[in-house]
């Protein structure tokens, strides 16, 4: 039986990494937009991103746009592979649904 990655298999982190996977490995999304898509508070999203970042699944970049600090988030190749493995495992556990 395949095992589900515990870093990904939690509601908020699963939603987060799903959206980042859609953004793609070669792009980063503004933290504010990610928060809007996920309908999460900034604090909550930051906590889950830290956990994904610790696992090497996402990369968080801080920058300055004009005079305003901005944060961008992107999925890493390791994160993309982990997400693909999670999806495959989920599919298998559900009997190829």
């Amino acid at each position, binding site marked *: 039986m395949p095992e589900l990655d515990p870093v990904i298999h939690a509601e908020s982190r699963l*939603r987060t990494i799903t959206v980042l996977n859609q953004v793609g490995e070669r792009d980063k999304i503004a933290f504010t937009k990610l928060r809007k898509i996920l309908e999460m508070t900034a604090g909550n999203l930051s906590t889950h991103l830290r956990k994904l970042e610790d696992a090497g699944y996402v990369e968080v970049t801080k920058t300055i746009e004009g005079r305003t600090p901005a944060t961008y988030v992107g999925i890493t190749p390791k994160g993309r592979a982990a997400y693909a493995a999670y999806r495959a495992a989920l599919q298998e556990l559900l009997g190829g649904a």
Partner: protein
Amino acid sequence: MTSPSHDHSVSGGEPQEAPLDLHAAFRLVNDAEAKARQELYGNEAVIYVIWGTAWLLGYGTLHGSRFGWLPVGSGQGLAVHGGCILAALVSTVVLISRRNRVIRGHSSYLGALYGGGWALGFLTMGCLGAVVGAMTADFWLRSMALNGIAILIVGLMYLAGGAMFNDRNQAVLGVWFLVVNVVSLLAGPLHFLTVLAVLGPLGFFGAAVAGSIRRRSPRAGA
């Protein structure tokens, strides 16, 4: 989608969540993918509908002025056509730039190259317009030649867009416009407007329908 306000409690700085069953996880992934597609890429069908309408009104008015079923002269018809194309262009730029400003990276680079390609293509067409204008005084022959150049650019740019963004819809539209262009040129100065007023909007509306169907597909963009 579950609201974060009622399914989390914070314990020691770490949000605690209810265990996720397999079916809920599957639904959640599909919902999150659909929401991300909607928020990140918008509805491409809207842009095709805008352009289909612009072509229908613009080439339709030119056709009406050519064949006398509208009480407008050829100069007024041309002005309406130009206004329709300009309105569609402004709407497209606004929609795409609003969508792209929250993403940075490779797709921004591709988007800038692609947008620059369209701008340079039509800048070249503007210069060619002056040359063609000096070559013939026949309004409709000149119009056919300039539209031929413009639609060649449109067809090639859609083909390039299809290749750059792995977008079959754009690639098919590119081929469609290149074929429509050949047909309109073969139709000659008398009938090229009929071909463009009918087959041009048909291509855009067809792409809008195909885009909407693809968007509703659960595995779209995966």
